[in-house]
């Protein structure tokens, strides 16, 4: 019997090879977060001993953590893959996107325009993403290979049936697919794999002292992009991040877990889900993720 991680790895490798074989211009969405770090490792393993033949794409909101950007640049260089950075700031400067304003403003949603522009500019026809179906209930509806029309839209009512291990990758020019090799992984599977494979992560994922303030039950980072409201006090706490995204909507959790093993133990004992604890943008409405996905967000 294959172990569960071996099964999940084998399934992911199969999908990665299918996409590489059937598409002309794939790319891998690499945010520097743990899921995309695992995805990059899987791509490396799927095609070894050949190098990864496609670029990695990062949609930079301009509000990302410094540690994550450093990690992103270093990993891409170590693997010898081309790093394409698509900038939300440039989209704003060019008038393609309006800067979100008001309380709780975040550029997370604005990423979609930048992403779709990058897909068009580089003529990507397949994008690997590290999304997992356990993350969120709209994600639970996703296919492993998800068709997007020429506007980048996802239509959950009209998805291609996915049978056995057969993925229908046929598209017309201008359309694209999103491939999600980690679909069947849970947060714990990802961490177990990080431990087994020794996957390197940004330091943000492990406990460190950081100035944070509390808003809506979340600990948010001290950053000029996130003006504090009256009464929101900065405190120094030992924290770590469960997800890594835009600084304005990614919360930290109090933690002393400094190693992968300690993080795994902490997750096993937690009573709060990953996104529920740390993603402000998912809280906007019950359908926040669904709406973003329909628009073309990954």
């Amino acid at each position, binding site marked *: 019997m294959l172990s569960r991680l071996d099964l999940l790895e*084998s399934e992911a490798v199969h999908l990665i*090879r*299918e996409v590489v074989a059937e598409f002309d211009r794939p790319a891998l969405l690499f945010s520097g977060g743990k899921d995309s770090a695992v995805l990059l490792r899987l791509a490396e393993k799927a095609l070894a001993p*050949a190098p990864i033949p496609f670029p990695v794409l990062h949609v930079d909101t301009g509000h990302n953590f410094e540690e994550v950007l450093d990690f992103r640049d270093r990993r891409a260089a170590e693997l010898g893959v081309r790093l394409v950075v698509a900038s939300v700031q440039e989209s704003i400067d060019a008038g393609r996107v309006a800067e979100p304003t008001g309380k709780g403003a975040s550029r997370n949603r604005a990423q979609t325009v930048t992403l779709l522009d990058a897909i068009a500019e580089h003529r990507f026809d397949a994008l690997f993403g590290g999304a997992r179906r356990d993350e969120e*209930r709209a994600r*639970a509806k996703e296919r492993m290979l998800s068709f997007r029309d020429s506007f980048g839209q996802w239509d959950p009512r009209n998805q291609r049936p996915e*049978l056995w291990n057969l993925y229908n990758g046929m*598209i017309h020019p201008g359309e694209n697919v999103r491939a999600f090799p980690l679909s069947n992984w849970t947060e714990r599977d990802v961490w177990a794999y990080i431990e087994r494979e020794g996957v390197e992560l940004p330091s943000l994922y492990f406990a460190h002292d950081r100035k944070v303030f509390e808003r809506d039950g979340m600990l948010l980072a001290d950053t000029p992009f996130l003006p504090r409201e009256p009464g929101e006090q900065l405190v120094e706490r030992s924290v770590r991040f469960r997800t890594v995204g835009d600084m304005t909507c990614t919360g930290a959790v109090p933690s002393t877990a400094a190693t992968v093993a300690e993080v795994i133990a902490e997750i096993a004992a937690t009573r709060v889900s990953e996104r529920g604890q740390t993603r402000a943008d998912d809280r906007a409405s*019950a359908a926040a993720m669904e709406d973003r996905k329909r628009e073309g967000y990954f």
Partner: protein
Amino acid sequence: MSDAPVFAPADSLLRFATAGAVDDGKSTLIGRLLHDSRSLLADQLEALELASRERGNAELDLAMLTDGLRAEREQGITIDVAHRYFETARRAFIIADTPGHAQYTRNMVTGASTAGLAIVLVDARNGLTEQSRRHAVLAGLLRVPRLVLAVNKMDLVGFDETAFRAITGEFAAFTAQLGLREVTAIPISALRGDNVVHRSEAMPWYDGPALLEHLEDVEVTDEGAAGEFRLPVQCTIRAPGYRGYAGQIASGSIAPGEEVLHLPSGMRSRVVAVDTADGELDRGRAPQSVTVRLADDIDIGRGDMLCAPANPPVAATELTASVCWMSAGSALEPGTRLLLKHTTRTVKALVSGIGDRLEITTLERGPAERLQLNEIGEVGLRLAQPVFCDPYAGNRFTGGAVLIDEATHATVGAVMITGAR
């Protein structure tokens, strides 16, 4: 921490599909499984409580856990397959939660194609409906190894054993013709939690396991591991001094030194190594993804097959197959041109004839001129190039295929091969 979810190194994984007609309580059942196995986290529970209150329900509306799309919540129905994940101390589970509406039968087929077990939910008050029969037929057709008949809403029939026996008797008579290998019937109340995670005291006449116990106990095996060796080639991997053929082993196993047959060339070679990124394997087995190196230089590419020389698959340009038609916009009829995707090979296909149509409610086969959405029938296909296939009854991966519309690129048919030449 007694209320923490139980996490143990559960290493085995069971994929199961759930099916049931609208209002049979399928979403409630899944919600109950997640809730009572303590798989829900505090924020998810909180969101559920809030949503239940907003909808005016005094108690937790567990069904709302699984309805992920806006339209589903608004209409209170399930539209598409959702995948749920949970684990107990003994096993991890992936649920393919498939909708009950007849118009989404294609999604039931999708969910069942990789399932090791299917749960067919029946409302104890209504007995078997056309939808329950359809789901049992699909599970049989897709060769899902195990089936659970969950007779739900037992609380609404006074936990009456006779009602339960009547349904299981009717179901047994119906499924006797389907070739289902293992059927287990469990009386439950998803709403109250009877026999879902915990055994019920309300039905002392039932001495079997609760549903979750059964799911934890059923044997899980790697599919195809015992069969003949089949490796559909996905791509060639080249690096300086390296040339290997990558693919996921569809069935059987392969070790260095063994001989393999290459299709379509018919040439034989010897395996030098079975590689993974972690090193060479002593033996590669289904469903591992591997890269195979051969002793001879043969022209091998995507869509080819490496297989056991003694028992190779059939290189077929004529197929007969059970086809589930999935397109609302068109019908399948003789003369229809399509693409057939089989393993890693996509070929042009022409519908050469329709043998019959399966009447889902009676299991009778009758003549048909075409297949409409959600209909299943025996279809003849003529292919422009051969595919290397086995009967679906013996191999779900080399016996299954999908039909793709050449113009729209939609996946329009599920194909289970019954004959090939």
